[in-house]
């Protein structure tokens, strides 16, 4: 069993209004060192596979078909050791 972690984020070229709103709120808290905030999604998948390569293929397929919308989002896959 492989534990995959997927981060889905809006593409850098796309304005992230949630991130912007959170950034404003952080500035109101006085945390002026924060330069930018981007908000995304974190998804965990438990995958049955024989190898890490096979598990990666499954997770990539899940991301491309459902978990991320590649018109506006990027995704990053990592595995828990």
């Amino acid at each position: 069993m492989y534990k995959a972690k997927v981060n889905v984020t809006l593409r850098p070229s796309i304005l992230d209004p949630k991130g912007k709103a959170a950034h404003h709120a952080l500035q109101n808290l006085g945390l002026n060192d924060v330069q930018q905030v981007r908000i995304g999604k974190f998804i965990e998948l438990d995958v049955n596979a024989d190898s890490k390569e096979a598990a990666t293929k499954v997770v990539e397929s899940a991301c491309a078909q459902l978990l991320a919308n590649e018109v506006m989002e990027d995704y990053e896959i990592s595995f828990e050791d």
Partner: protein
Amino acid sequence: MATFGVIVFPGSNCDHDAYHAMKHIMNCDVKFLWHKDTDLSGIDFLIVPGGFSYGDYLRSGAIARFSPIMQEVVKFAEKGGPVLGICNGFQILLEAGLIPGAMMHNQDLRFVCKNVFIRCETTDSLFTNSLTKGQVFDIPVSHGEGNYHINESGLKSLQDQDQILFRYSDADGNLTEESNFNGSIDHIAGITNDGRNVLGMMPHPERAMEKLLGSDDGKIIFDSILNSLSVA
């Protein structure tokens, strides 16, 4: 007389409005189609209604797109069958890849529920061919994710192929910044696919059918559709 099919997903909430509009105002035959149905026989025109299908989990329309009926809707559309997706229906058609682009959260993050003005941009479609180019309609919107996005080359292709059917405007048909309340690229309120048989629009023509309820401008759009179906 054309028979309309209105698809019902768990979480649809404009399905009855669409049914009422087509059945009682436009006097057409209408059937509800459950998301687990796969039989579209006898249906001439499909409406994918608004709402919050599958609770908008993950992204609006992302889960609905994999429902059994959507596989049939894709086949129907690919054969040239006319499909109208309204609001969440538009989002589902985008996720299903029947129309290019994607929906983001409204630019100010607010759910907007009000009447807006949209302008007809082309009469070259079965949905708009009895309208007038530049004609302005008073139509309600009700969405949190209606900020239409597409990349530059995709936008150019929509413009070049005359696929933008409706843009947000003011009452006089001017494309002012305030009229584009959700931040959609190029004021896009409704677009068609390159086959011109699928329309996705965020505004709700099915909720603008009776003067008593504010506006009956939606009826003009359905008149145009019925006109096209009767001559087809």
